[in-house]
């Protein structure tokens, strides 16, 4: 690919919203002011992990002075909803299936009154036996979480298999059993991970209004306005054009703000009370009712040849979906497509069973299924290399996938940059500078990662203002700086300085359909659509300029607010003149662009972690962390780098301290005190390198990078711990207690 010099893309620019954020004037959902006198909402959530609802009595709650409306499942159409499998009751009328399952909501003059009223709602429960372990849920005799599983409508991805199996999927190539038989050696190991919470610092919050014309307006901290609008409309039983969703600033999402939460309840209350209703989750509620990263149990079997090749692999995943099939069923479908790792394995079978349990339903969290499967894959690579006497780097290199490798789903992966990414992290970390003996109880670990990013349908429009500045109209939510990148993209095509491009975040009523800010593809999807729209604008300007310049559009370019003949700057016509001409003849210039779904493109990452282990306490300190990320062309390098650092930080948290703990199905660490996020003292400086090889697809060759960085850190740290302390950790999080226990077991087994 030839080196291109760009004016706008590829330069670090400040985020469009950053001044608002550093002055405290950015409007988050709880900051959003209503039209009209605000009511505060609170939600009744199930105290039981599994129970049938026999009756709900709201009379005492309704009698509390200051209570303005109460909504239960009786007030809404009793339809099952869900993005992939329709297994959810919005306000439970039949059963509750996890502690936190939504039953009713109250709007009152103050939040204290609303919460007090919630406490006065009387629900008669028939408590049912609970199942909280995914493998037990799949076994015989387990309490059934969804008796109606066979009748649920499947929208996409889910393949229910009866009992508590919300989805089963298996993809394979070749003949793994034959591969194992021929292998020089076969390895097998079980790896497990816990549920991990997004722990965005802004809890779920929304404000709903209802106007007398019968339209709902919902302001929400959401990553995707269109799916949310659709779900609200479905649950309320109204036509989609009656619901307008507006995304406020999102105080962290990471995939945890893509589901319907309390918005429909707030909307129903707003209609019933005739006043706007705000519902903000407490931090505890968010931990109980948010949708965490699923817990995995993975059995990995690997056969290798004597000359260092991965010959055969089976991976059997049991994933804990929690009470509903939100992200769980999606992962059952997607995992076989990426859990080969960054490698090419001739004989491969990946099976996934997604189990219902009486725990909070899991949803997507930054690379759903990625860090979990990568933990197993990369720890095995290290373990196998050592057992076979192979160099850990060379073993990986030998097996990295080539360009156009085909996934188990038959997708050909283009722009494979695996080798270069590995090289980059080795260089950054000085991996081979192992001149000195490593210090006792210190060790270095390597892990590679991969993540496949698609693209989703998106439309945008671009208006040119009378002075030639541009406004991009889009419905994509700016989670990670995508609006800034879009401004750069449009500015590049229209040869404008980025400050003369406004990106207008619209709502569901005014925006063309847009993808959500999920799955690392907001930029790819809306960026591609934006380039199309900008080219459409340019095309229209060029058409209008033909009579001035007397050449065909193929010989024209945009520069300095003119359309001019390429290579002849003297022959130019002002854009403003062309705009005026357009207005007179045919109306304003508007560009449109749209994309459908894209097939997946791979992105690669590689990490090197240095840790110190305290052998007496088992505490692990991360001394240094290096991350290389394959980014394609980085439209806004500083923002891309920020995504890498942030993903690494979350990966380190998942590795060492984060995990949801349950007692009898109830989240036991539903707060920042005991759900341990890394603080500024828990992380080292995060060293990064962006590997920029423009991709064959994507705006200016940009790749999606929101998710990949979170994938390899847990394995890198586990491998580093092995090299520091001589113990292989096979379950996340790697707490001091687990390390200490592993060291003790090794001592007792007569180890060193």
């Amino acid at each position, binding site marked *: 690919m030839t080196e291109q010099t760009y004016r706008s893309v590829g330069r670090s620019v400040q985020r469009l919203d950053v001044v608002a954020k550093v002055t405290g004037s950015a409007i988050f959902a709880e900051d959003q002011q209503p039209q009209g006198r605000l009511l505060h909402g609170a939600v009744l959530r199930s105290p039981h992990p599994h129970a049938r609802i026999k009756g709900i009595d709201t009379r005492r709650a309704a009698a509390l002075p200051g209570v303005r409306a109460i909504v239960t499942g009786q007030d809404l159409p009793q339809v099952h909803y869900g993005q992939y499998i329709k297994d959810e009751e919005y306000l439970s009328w039949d059963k509750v299936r996890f502690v936190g399952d939504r039953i009713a909501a109250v709007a009152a003059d103050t939040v*204290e009154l609303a*919460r*007090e009223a919630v406490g006065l709602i009387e629900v008669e429960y028939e408590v049912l036996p609970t199942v909280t372990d995914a493998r037990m849920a799949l076994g015989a005799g387990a309490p059934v979480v969804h008796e109606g599983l066979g009748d649920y409508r499947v929208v996409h991805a889910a393949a229910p298999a009866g009992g508590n199996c919300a989805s089963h999927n298996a993809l394979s190539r070749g003949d793994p059993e034959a591969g194992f038989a021929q292998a020089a050696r076969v390895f097998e190991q079980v790896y497990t991970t816990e549920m991990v919470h997004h722990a965005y610092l802004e809890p779920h919050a929304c404000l709903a209004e209802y106007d007398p014309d019968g339209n709902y307006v919902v302001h929400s901290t959401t990553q995707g306005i269109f799916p949310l609008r659709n779900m609200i409309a479905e649950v309320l039983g109204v036509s989609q054009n009656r619901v307008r969703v507006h995304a406020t600033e999102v105080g962290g999402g990471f995939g945890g703000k893509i589901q319907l939460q309390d918005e429909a309840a707030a909307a129903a209350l707003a209609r019933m009370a005739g006043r706007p209703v705000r519902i903000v989750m407490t931090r505890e509620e968010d931990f109980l009712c948010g949708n965490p990263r699923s817990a995995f149990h993975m059995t990995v079997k690997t056969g290798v040849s004597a000359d260092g090749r991965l010959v055969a692999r089976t991976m059997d995943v049991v994933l804990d979906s929690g009470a509903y099939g939100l992200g769980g069923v999606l992962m059952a479908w997607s995992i076989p497509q990426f859990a080969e790792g960054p490698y090419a394995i001739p004989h491969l079978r990946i099976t996934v069973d997604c189990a219902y349990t009486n725990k909070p339903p899991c949803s997507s969290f930054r690379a759903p299924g990625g860090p979990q499967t990568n933990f197993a894959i990369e720890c095995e690579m290290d373990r196998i290399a050592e057992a076979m006497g192979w160099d850990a780097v060379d073993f990986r290199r030998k097996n990295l996938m080539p360009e156009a490798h085909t996934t188990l789903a038959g997708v050909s992966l283009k722009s494979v940059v695996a080798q270069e990414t590995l090289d980059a992290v080795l260089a950054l970390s000085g991996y081979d500078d192992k001149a000195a003996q490593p210090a006792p109880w210190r060790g270095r670990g390597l892990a590679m990662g991969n993540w496949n990013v698609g693209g989703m349908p998106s439309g945008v429009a671009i208006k040119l203002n009378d002075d030639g500045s541009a406004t991009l109209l889009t419905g994509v939510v700016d989670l990670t700086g995508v609006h800034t990148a879009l401004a750069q993209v449009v500015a590049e095509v229209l040869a404008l300085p980025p400050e003369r491009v406004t990106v207008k975040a619209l709502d569901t009523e005014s925006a063309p359909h847009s993808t959500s800010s999920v799955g690392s593809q907001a930029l790819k999807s809306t960026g591609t659509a934006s380039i199309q729209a900008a080219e459409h604008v340019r095309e229209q300007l060029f058409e209008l300029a033909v009579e001035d310049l007397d050449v065909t559009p193929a010989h024209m370019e945009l520069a300095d607010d003119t359309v001019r003949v390429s290579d002849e700057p003297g022959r130019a016509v002002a854009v403003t003149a062309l705009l005026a001409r357009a207005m007179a003849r045919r109306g304003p210039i508007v560009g449109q662009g749209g994309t459908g779904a894209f097939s997946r493109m791979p992105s690669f990452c590689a990490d090197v972690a240095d840790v110190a282990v305290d*052998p*007496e*306490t088992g*505490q692990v300190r991360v001394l240094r962390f290096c991350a290389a990320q394959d980014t394609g062309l980085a439209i806004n390098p500083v923002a891309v780098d920020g995504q890498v650092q942030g993903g690494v930080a979350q990966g380190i948290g998942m590795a060492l*301290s984060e995990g949801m*703990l349950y*007692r009898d199905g109830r989240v*036991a*660490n539903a707060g*920042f*005190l*005991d759900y*341990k996020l890394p*603080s*500024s*003292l*828990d992380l080292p400086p995060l060293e990064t390198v962006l590997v920029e090889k423009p991709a064959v697809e994507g705006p200016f060759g940009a790749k999606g990078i929101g998710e990949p960085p979170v994938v390899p850190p847990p394995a890198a740290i586990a491998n580093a711990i092995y090299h520091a302390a001589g113990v292989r950790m096979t379950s996340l999080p790697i707490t*001091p*207690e687990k390390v*200490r*226990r592993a060291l003790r077991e090794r001592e007792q087994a007569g180890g060193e």
Partner: protein
Amino acid sequence: MHEIAYHAPETLAEAMRLLAESGGAAQPLAGGTDLVLQLERGADPARVAVDLKRIPELQGTRSHGGGWRFGALVRMAELERDAALRAACPALVAAAGFVGGPPIRNRATLAGNICNASPAADTSPALLALGATVDCAGPGGTRTLPLGDFWQGPGQTVLTPGELVTGISLPAPPGRSGNAFARLTRSAMDIALINAAAQVTLDERGHFSDARLALGACGPTVFLVAGLTEALAGHPWNEETRAAAMGMARDAARPIDDVRASADYRRDMAGVLAARCLAQAIGHATGEPAAGKRDRP
């Protein structure tokens, strides 16, 4: 959830009157990091909040004869800034530095920490090891008691209705003594899953003449490991005494399983922290770094 009344008296007598007349419905409010937290959680810890922060005699630290008296309003951040205190009582200053994070330490008071009576409170083992006493004032008059007699159980003190802590005193550390604090968990914003503090006094040969080791978060209250002085007196710090001390700490610990750690791990760590505290306390006494690399902070 109930309304509360709020008062901000300017004298100790007025504060005591407000506390006494409410019949137990009033709570003193100093840093607020426990009381306001409970109010926020929808609990009803009190109907009346008596804000002590305007009462001059409860403020400030006085040092006298090599010892200290901390007024009830002295905050963790003030202890952290006290260079003389840090030099003489690093156990207390280190412990104070672990409480929450900077914004918490700007409000949380030493007195409030002991009154909350959490067995995991960081300053408690340090104060106990250093021989702290507690000054109380109530309707029945004033009294001073050893800190070890102050706690009755988790969240329970011996304070009677209307009585409040007016100050905490530390005696002058004995000659040739040292002290240290250690705790386990992450670096910030955390409740200890186990903590420990030691004060040791050495004789002319550098052998133990006295050893006090306090353990926290492994029993219903913070406590001193009994019999430690007897076991160590006359001996130097070596592999034997180290192992003995670790064993005594493990045996004395009565930890529970909870979300933060298992009882087994806590018990094990009681021994590890005991060794580290004692070694560092000796280092403080002698002015040399802690003997043995593994016991360095």
